C-alpha cells in the first residue's frame, strides 16, 4: 500500500455523511446531558456530606452508584462519538452499527436506572462481589441482577461497535499491528508521517476495550450466578481482579479515545500538521500493555495478592500515562508554540485538557506507591485524583470537541463573554473540587461515607461550593451546545 493511499480519506455519500453527523451529535448531546445530571448528583452528595442537605444513607448510596455508573457511561458514549467521528474519515465505518450501539446503550441505561431508583440498588458501580448479594434488605437480588444485566447489555453494544472498528481497520491495514504503526516502528516499513494518529489511538482503544469487555462478560455472569445460586462462591480475589481489570480499562480508555480530538483539532487551529513518528508509535504500543497491567494498584491492600502482581502494578503505574502523555503533551506544546493560534474556547479547552491530564496523574502515581497507599487507600485522595483528570482532562477534550462541532472552529468570531465566563467558572470550580478531595484525603477522610464526622464537614462544604461552580460552567457549556449543535454544519 503506498503512502498516498494510506493517508487518503474515505469517501461517503452525502446522505451517509449527514446521518453520521446526526449520530455524532446525538452521542455528544446525550453524553453531555448525562454529565450535567451526574454533576448535580455529585453536588448533592457533597452537600449531604457537608450537612447542607438532608438525605438518608440509602439514597446517598443510590446517588453514589448512579453517579459512578452514569459518568463512566457518559464518558464512554461521548468519547466514542469523538473517536468515531475522526476514525470514519480513515476507515470505512458503518453508521448502522454506530446507531445500534447507541440504542443498546440507552437500553442498558434504562435497566440500570430502574435497578437503582426502582430496585434501590446502591452497591456502587463497581458491583464488588459479594456486596450485591448481601444488601441486608437495602435492595433485592433482582435489583442487583438488573444492574449487572444493564452493564452486560452495554458491553455487548460496545463489543459490536469495536468489531466494526476492527473489521474496518483490518480491511484497510491488514493487521492491528500495522494499524498501530508497529511495522514502521520496527523498521519493516518506512516511517509514514501521515499515518493517522486517529487510527493508532483507535486501534489501541479497540484492543484494550475488547479485553476489558471480555473480562466483564465473564465476571458479570459469575456475579449473576452467585446472586441466584449463593452456594456458588467464586474466589473473591479473582472476582475483584477481573472487575477492576474491566472497570479500569474501560474508564481509562475513554481518555485515549478522546485524545484523538487533540491530535485532529490542534493542527487545525495552529495550521501545523500532527506528524506521527517512531516515538509516537512506541508510546502507543507501550500503553496497550500498561493500561491492562496497572489495575492491581486498586488491590495493593489485598495481602493475598501475589507480590509480583503488585510490584508490576506499581512499576507500570509509575510509567503508565507517561509515554502517551509525553508524546501528546510535548507534541501539543510544540504545535502551539509561536503558532499564532487563535484562542477559541475549543482551543482553550483542548489545551487545558493537556494540563488536566498531566497534572492529574501525579496524585494517581503517588497513590500507586505501596507505602503511600497504606495511608491513602480508600480515602478521598482517590476521588481527588480521578476527578482531577476526568474533570480537567477528559471533559475539556469532549466539550472542546462539542464546540468545534458547533461551528466555533470555523467562524472568525471571538469567544463570547458567556463562553469565557463558563470556561473560567468551570476551570476554577473543577480545580477546587479536585483539590478539596485531595486535601480531604491527605487528612485521612475516607471515601464512600454518606455521613461525615464533624471535623470533616468544612472540607465537604468547601467542596460543595466548588462543585456549584463546576455545575454553573457546565450549564453554560451545555446551553451553548444545545443551541448551536443541532443546526451546525459539518466543519470543513
Amino acid at each position, binding site marked *: 500500500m503506498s503512502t498516498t493511499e494510506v493517508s487518503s480519506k474515505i469517501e461517503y455519500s452525502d446522505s451517509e455523511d449527514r446521518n453520521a453527523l446526526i449520530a455524532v451529535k446525538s452521542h455528544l448531546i446525550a453524553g453531555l446531558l448525562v454529565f450535567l445530571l451526574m454533576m448535580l448528583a455529585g453536588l448533592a452528595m457533597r452537600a449531604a456530606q457537608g450537612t447542607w442537605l438532608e438525605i438518608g444513607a440509602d439514597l446517598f448510596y443510590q446517588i453514589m452508584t448512579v453517579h459512578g455508573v452514569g459518568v463512566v457511561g457518559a464518558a464512554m458514549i461521548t468519547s466514542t462519538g469523538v473517536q468515531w467521528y475522526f476514525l470514519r474519515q480513515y476507515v470505512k465505518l458503518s453508521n448502522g*452499527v454506530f446507531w445500534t450501539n447507541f440504542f443498546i446503550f440507552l437500553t442498558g441505561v434504562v435497566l440500570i436506572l430502574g435497578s437503582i431508583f426502582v430496585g434501590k440498588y446502591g452497591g456502587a458501580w463497581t458491583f464488588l462481589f459479594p456486596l450485591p448479594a448481601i444488601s441486608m434488605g437495602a435492595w433485592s437480588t433482582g435489583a442487583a441482577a438488573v444492574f449487572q444485566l444493564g452493564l452486560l447489555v452495554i458491553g*455487548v453494544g460496545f*463489543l*459490536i461497535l469495536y*468489531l*466494526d472498528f*476492527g*473489521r474496518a481497520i*483490518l480491511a484497510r491495514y*491488514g*493487521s*492491528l*499491528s500495522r494499524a498501530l504503526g508497529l511495522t514502521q516502528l520496527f523498521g519493516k516499513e518506512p516511517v509514514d508521517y501521515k499515518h493517522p494518529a486517529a487510527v493508532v489511538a483507535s486501534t489501541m482503544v479497540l*484492543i484494550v476495550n475488547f479485553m476489558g*469487555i*471480555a473480562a466483564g*462478560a*465473564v465476571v458479570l*455472569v*459469575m456475579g449473576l*450466578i452467585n446472586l441466584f445460586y449463593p*452456594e*456458588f*462462591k*467464586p*474466589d473473591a480475589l479473582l472476582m475483584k481482579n477481573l472487575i477492576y481489570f474491566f472497570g479500569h480499562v474501560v474508564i481509562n480508555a475513554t481518555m485515549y479515545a478522546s485524545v484523538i480530538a487533540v491530535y485532529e483539532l490542534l493542527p487545525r487551529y495552529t495550521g501545523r500538521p500532527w506528524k506521527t513518528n517512531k516515538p509516537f508509535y512506541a508510546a502507543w504500543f507501550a500503553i496497550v500493555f500498561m493500561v491492562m497491567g496497572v489495575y492491581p494498584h486498586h488491590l495493593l491492600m489485598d495481602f493475598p495478592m501475589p507480590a509480583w502482581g503488585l510490584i508490576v502494578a506499581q512499576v507500570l503505574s509509575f510509567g503508565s500515562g507517561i509515554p502517551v502523555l509525553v508524546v501528546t503533551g510535548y507534541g501539543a506544546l510544540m504545535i502551539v508554540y509561536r503558532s499564532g493560534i487563535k484562542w477559541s474556547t475549543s482551543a482553550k479547552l483542548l489545551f487545558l485538557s493537556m494540563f488536566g491530564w498531566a497534572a492529574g496523574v501525579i496524585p494517581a502515581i503517588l497513590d500507586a506507591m505501596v507505602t503511600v497507599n497504606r495511608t491513602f487507600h480508600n480515602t478521598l485522595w482517590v476521588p481527588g485524583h480521578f476527578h482531577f483528570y476526568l474533570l480537567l482532562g477528559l471533559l475539556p477534550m469532549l466539550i472542546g470537541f462539542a464546540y468545534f462541532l458547533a461551528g466555533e472552529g470555523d467562524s472568525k468570531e471571538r469567544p463570547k463573554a458567556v463562553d469565557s465566563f463558563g470556561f473560567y467558572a468551570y476551570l476554577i470550580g473543577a480545580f477546587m473540587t479536585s483539590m478539596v478531595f485531595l486535601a480531604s484525603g491527605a487528612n485521612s477522610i475516607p471515601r464512600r461515607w454518606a455521613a461525615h464526622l464533624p471535623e470533616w464537614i468544612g472540607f465537604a462544604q468547601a467542596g460543595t461550593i466548588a462543585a456549584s461552580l463546576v455545575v454553573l460552567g457546565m450549564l453554560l457549556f451545555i446551553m451553548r451546545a444545545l443551541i448551536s449543535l443541532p443546526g451546525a454544519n459539518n466543519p470543513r
Partner: protein
Amino acid sequence: MYPKAKQAWLLLAALVILALPPMQRFLEQSMVMHMLVQIPALVIIGWITGKILPENWKDNIAPWNRWGITGIALAIIIMTYWMLPRVQDAAISEWPVELTKFITVPIMGMALGISWPQLNPIAQGVLKLEFWATFMRLGWLYLDLPDRLCANYLLSDQRVFGQLLLLAGSIWAVAWTLRIMFGIRIVNT
C-alpha cells in the same frame, strides 16, 4: 456427485459407530470424554452433513435462513438446552433422551455449518466472544461449585473437565490474539 454420496455414507457410518452401545458406554463413562469427544464429534458430523447437502435442499432452506439467522438461532437454542447438566445426565440414564441427543446435536452442527458462513461478520464476532466467555464461565463454575452437577459423574471428573475448559479457552484466546494482532494463523477459526 459421487464423492458427496461417499461422504454421506461415511458420515452415517460415523454416527452409527458413535451410537453403538460399547462405544457409547466408553465415551460416556467420563465427563471429559462425553463432553469433549462425543458431543463435538456429533456436532462435526452435523457440520459436514450441512456442507454436503444436495444443492436443491440448500436452495429450499435458503429463503428460511436469510443471513443465517434462523439456523444460528436454532443452533443456540439446542446448544443452550444441552448445556444444562441435568439433561446430559438424563441422556446417560434414559434412552429417549439419549436418542434426542443423537438427533438434535447433529442438527445443531448442521444448522451451524449452513448458517455460520452466511452470518454477518460482526454477529460472528459477538458469538465467538460469547462462546469463548461460556468456556471460561463454565470452566470456572465446574472448578468452584461445591456439589456434583451430574449424578453419573464424580466430583473429580467435574474438576478435570473445568480445568480443560479453562485451558481450551486460554489457548483459543492466545490463538485469536496472535491472529488479530500479527496476522499469524495457528488454527483456522
